[in-house]
């Protein structure tokens, strides 16, 4: 198993390098300009000087090489410094002996990683909660609808799952805002990232500002997961071992809950792991609608402002996540399903 993981990780490295180069080339071809959104009162010469200072005009391969070095060598060292407090770099003389430059956003001229780390918790909270709630709703729903296949219970359950799957999150989100925040006035429309939960009141406020995005995403996640669960259950319910279990005289509850559900959960759990990078995509839209300062929103503003280093870094992190969770899914499958052995 360990050897399998190591091999997968080693194979992932060239893949990721190829992806990073592809993303870099695509972005370099783009006609955007990081100073394009400045007021017209800023004269072109000044813009040119600013672009020069950002390093926009460097040749592509120089930029790519620098970025690779920053992403894989410099940033990890800074993160190490951040976590341990040990100073690797010399900060005593910033002018004559500056520490190595990190990946800087063209918008804020600040390290992209700092902004990402600052924004990660918001994204993780919303996504994590909606994923957990989604699974909690979906798995029982999948079991019930599959067990009662083609009855009215199944029809109603599957219909709602399909609706959750078909109504785009942005339509639902806009609807929620207007019903609960504007028309009803019960919930805030802006998310306050500086809110500190110190008392019951602030706790309630925190719930109020997070409940809409979490609900919208939960709805979608539940729909997706319950469809997985249902079809996985259906695959298992017709198999021989179920018949064997029944013929052994087990109670129906025992047959379904112990045997079928456990076996059906194996592919669902792997699918859950595979889906995780995908739901980061969903975060882009939800964060934009509910004004949450997460990673997705950062990506959108970066794209709109031609902030190539930020776009490059965030997209690449998404790619790493996908590769990583693919491996996790495979490993989970190996652990859960005794028929599969990795050697």
């Amino acid at each position: 198993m360990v050897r399998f993981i190591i091999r997968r990780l080693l194979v992932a490295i060239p893949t990721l390098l190829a992806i990073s180069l592809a993303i870099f080339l695509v972005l370099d071809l783009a006609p955007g300009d990081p100073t394009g959104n400045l007021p017209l009162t800023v004269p072109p010469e000044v813009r040119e000087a600013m672009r020069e200072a950002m390093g926009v005009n460097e040749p592509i391969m120089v930029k790519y090489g620098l970025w690779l070095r920053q992403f894989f060598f410099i940033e990890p060292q800074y993160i190490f410094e951040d976590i341990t407090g040990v100073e690797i770099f010399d900060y005593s003389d910033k002018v004559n002996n500056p520490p190595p430059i990190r990946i800087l956003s063209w918008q804020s001229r600040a390290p992209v990683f700092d902004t990402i780390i600052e924004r990660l918790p918001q994204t993780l909270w919303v996504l994590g909660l909606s994923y957990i709630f989604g699974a909690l709703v979906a798995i029982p729903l999948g079991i019930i609808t599959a067990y009662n296949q083609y009855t009215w219970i199944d029809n109603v359950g599957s219909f709602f799952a399909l609706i959750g799957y078909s109504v785009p999150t942005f339509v639902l989100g806009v609807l929620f805002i207007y019903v609960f925040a504007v028309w009803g006035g019960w919930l805030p429309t802006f998310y306050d990232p500086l809110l500190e939960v110190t008392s019951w009141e602030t706790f309630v406020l925190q719930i109020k500002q997070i409940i809409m995005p979490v609900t919208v995403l939960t709805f979608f996640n539940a729909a997706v997961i319950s469809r997985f669960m249902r079809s996985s259950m259906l695959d298992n319910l017709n198999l021989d071992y179920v018949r064997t279990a029944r013929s052994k005289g087990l109670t129906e509850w025992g047959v379904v809950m112990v045997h079928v559900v456990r076996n059906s959960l194996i592919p669902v759990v792997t699918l859950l792991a595979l889906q995780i990078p995908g739901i980061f995509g969903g975060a882009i839209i939800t964060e934009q609608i509910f004004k949450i300062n997460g990673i997705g929103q950062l990506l959108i503003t970066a794209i709109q402002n031609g902030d190539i280093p930020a776009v490059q870094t965030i997209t690449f992190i998404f790619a790493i996540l996908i590769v990583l969770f693919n491996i996790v899914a495979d490993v989970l499958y190996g652990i859960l399903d005794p028929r599969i052995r990795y050697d």
Partner: protein
Amino acid sequence: MKKSLFIVLFALVGIMLVACQPQVVEVEVTRVVTETETVVEEVVVEVEKEVEVIKEVEVIQEVEVAGGARGIGDRLTLIYWQAPTNLNPYQSGGTKEIEASSPIIEPLARFDETGKLVPALAAEIPTLANGGFSEDLTTITWTLKEGVLWSDGTPFTADDVVFTYEYCIDPATGCGSSNLFEAIDTITAVDDTTVEIIFKDPRPYPYEAFVAHTAPILQRAQFGDCVGAAAAQCTDENFAPIGTGPYVVAEFLSNDSVLYVPNENYRDPNKPYFSEVFMKGGGSAEDAARAVLETNEADYAWNTQVPPEVLSAMELAGNGKVLNSFGTCVERIMVNFTDNSPELGDDRSLYLDGENPHRFLQEPAIREALSMAVDRGTLTTIGYGNLANPTCNVVPAPSAFVSTANNSCLTQDIEGAKALLDEAGVVDGDGDGIREYNGIPLNILYQTSTNAVRQQYQALIKQWWAEIGVETELRNIDASVFFGGDPSSPDTYAKFYADVEMYTNCASGQDLQGYLGSWLPGEIPGPDNSWGTSNVPRYVNDEYVALHETLTQTGDPDERAEIVKQLNDILVQDGVMIPLTHRGSVSASGNDILGVRINAWDSELWNIADWSRAEN
């Protein structure tokens, strides 16, 4: 079962958050409010009377005895839907960063909402009259206020002013306002409170460096190590500049929110009123307007440029009001004087010493007819409601500089335009409904940036031009490309691969001389300057050049105003551009916020020290 899990999970979330955050000590201030309310209002009145600043400072010092009114208010919530990415305006050049930094760092002098210069860190405005500005127009001497402290408690001195110049003028800093400092030859700190600036050439209008929100003073002690290439390493400094303004940064989340708290060393001990100011970004202009006007979540929303009928419907909710104020911004159509035919290849839209005239827009009658056919009133009402005005001028403000010679264009005249074209021999020869000029049909490619209002303008103007026999093809380009400076992109406004294009432009502050200098022949964009100059119409007129030269030699304000009007009239009457709408800044403010004076010449938060909340 599911429900209880839900609650347990949230409780867990809560416990973890509590564990992570330090306790905030709340200060009870309710009883002081009544007393200080009057004080604050007094000061506002004082400022409005525009008494001399030195007196004002004395008044304020008297108030101090009356007792600490600083920070007695609650939280002021501002929505800046385009959120600031950092708080050092020199590192960004963008309006949102300049706005967000203005409660923290200050210039020597500011513009008030009427466009008049008022001192900020300077003791007074140096003028020809008070001798602060030399008769030969080359030397300006700023005297600073005594006893001003930085928010870290150290004294603010003339040396910091000199430093700001050094910081911004270094090309490797990538300073977004370096153009404001370029005219300076030498700058010296004569003593702690005197700065002497000598310009390279005579400058009749010397109020650019260290004036207004685009050129505030940075502290040498903080930014000393951040000059030149080292500027990129100064994230901590850029995210929390030390300033002299009423507020300091408590927390900053790039591209999302800023939390300000009062500056304990602010020069007026009774200000600012609010105990914290929270600036939140995200969403759209409409979300921002709604948060103030309808849901009452916020107190002030910046740049709430939404469809007028939507805004007025929101205003009916009664929580706040829409404010607007006018600078020099005019939405206009620029006319291309050079030929942009694709067949020309690399010579498209190049001036080529006058060898590449436009196929038909060289004909003055056509340019005039295009202008006459437009109903500016309808356009403006549809696009902006009563928050903007139709205009026929390139220079629509300040009032002393506004020409009245062109106001006839405010009435649409389709028939007149047709007659004009007929008279000039531009008629529809082949009966296809489109007029020809020397056999060339009047097909116009009309480009602008992607923006709902601009596309509304395009659609309407296309219909009107069709009525006078001009066919129009519309094109819109994403703003970041259109206004971008990529010399390899064919779609920038400076490349101008179209017959006409539409955008808004404004003078930088009140520098009308520099603004009108945009349309001099030396400013024609082309490959030699990477399309980096401002004479976008490729306009050449010797009369205009001579008149502008006179302007640069003239010091007398009245004479200057007269010349500006004449320059404006040449641009408009010669059809170089078709001004459409005088746009203002639009913002929304809660009803209970006092002291807001929306300002198009400076930051909207220029007087945030004076803001307070009315008692219920």
